[in-house]
């Protein structure tokens, strides 16, 4: 693959990403925190994020696809349980998730 093409791809990816952020910053100037539209955007933001994460677990792209779905769901449930039972510690469940998947994927 040519170096020029990679650079073009980086520029295209960066532009495609920055457009959404920048449009968001412009729209935000007209949106009041107390308005209904703000609440709607808030809901859409959380659900789009949840949709992305749901997809990553059920239909993952890349190397994660080389594990079983039942393993991924099981690890997610266990880690959420750890998160809730350790006063919302995030370091513990994330480290455990990596170790669990590496071990379970090799059984």
């Amino acid at each position: 693959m040519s170096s020029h093409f990679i650079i073009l791809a980086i520029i295209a990816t960066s532009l495609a990403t920055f457009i959404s952020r920048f449009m968001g910053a412009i729209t935000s100037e007209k949106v009041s925190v107390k308005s209904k539209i703000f609440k709607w955007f808030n809901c859409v933001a959380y659900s789009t994020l949840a949709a992305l994460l749901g997809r990553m677990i059920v239909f993952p792209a890349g190397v994660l696809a080389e594990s079983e779905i039942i393993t991924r769901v099981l690890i997610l449930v266990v880690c959420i349980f750890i998160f809730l039972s350790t006063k919302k510690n995030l370091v513990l469940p994330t480290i455990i998730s990596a170790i669990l998947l590496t071990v379970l994927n090799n059984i």
Partner: protein
Amino acid sequence: MINSKIFLTGLKSLKGSRSPAIPLAACFVALGALLKDAGFNLQQSAASSLFTYALPGQLVMAESLLVGASIINIFLAVWLVNFRLYPMTVSLFPLLEHKSQPKWKYYLSCHFLAVSSWLIAKDSYKKINKRHRIDFWIGIGIGTWSTAILMTIIGYLSADYLNKDMLVGLAIVNPVYFFCMMIGAMKNLSVCISVILGTILGPVIYLISAEWALLFAGLIAGTVAFLLGSKNDE
């Protein structure tokens, strides 16, 4: 210009038991290794995280390059997968607005918007005086952004030492971290419905249309949550 004390408070969100540094490290190390695989050199890999800084988009770029997609196709595929940043920005930036702050701060710092920084800011903005919230955000953003760039470089350099099992293990860290953070954010009915319905609809709509799944799932689940939640939360 920037209140350094508040900036540092934001930067320090990288520390402690809620730190995003571990999941950021896990996913950007894996990305660095993937980009090396896709034929990038070290500078190009670092530049990708420096200028794009949005993991799902960078993954789409790498995969599209590997299958020989055109630049236009890459642009559209990335735009669709990263469109989530638009509603995310609009649901955060009004909380950081203050008349005394110059606009360039908002226009430049929107580049720091990513899932990790967004969840941290949404979780902690209330602790900061309204006047200085944008400086707090810039602190969070510089911290998470520079971690991502550094980890991409480390991932690229250590690609030969990472075997497949390790990369699979690293790949689960990101969704686990973000799911935990979202569950921590489920404090009212509309957010609860948004998260639960979005998680279900994301994979379901993906079966019908892979490209449009995120956009439609987000719009439908978000609108339902808004309608049901707004009656109850008032």
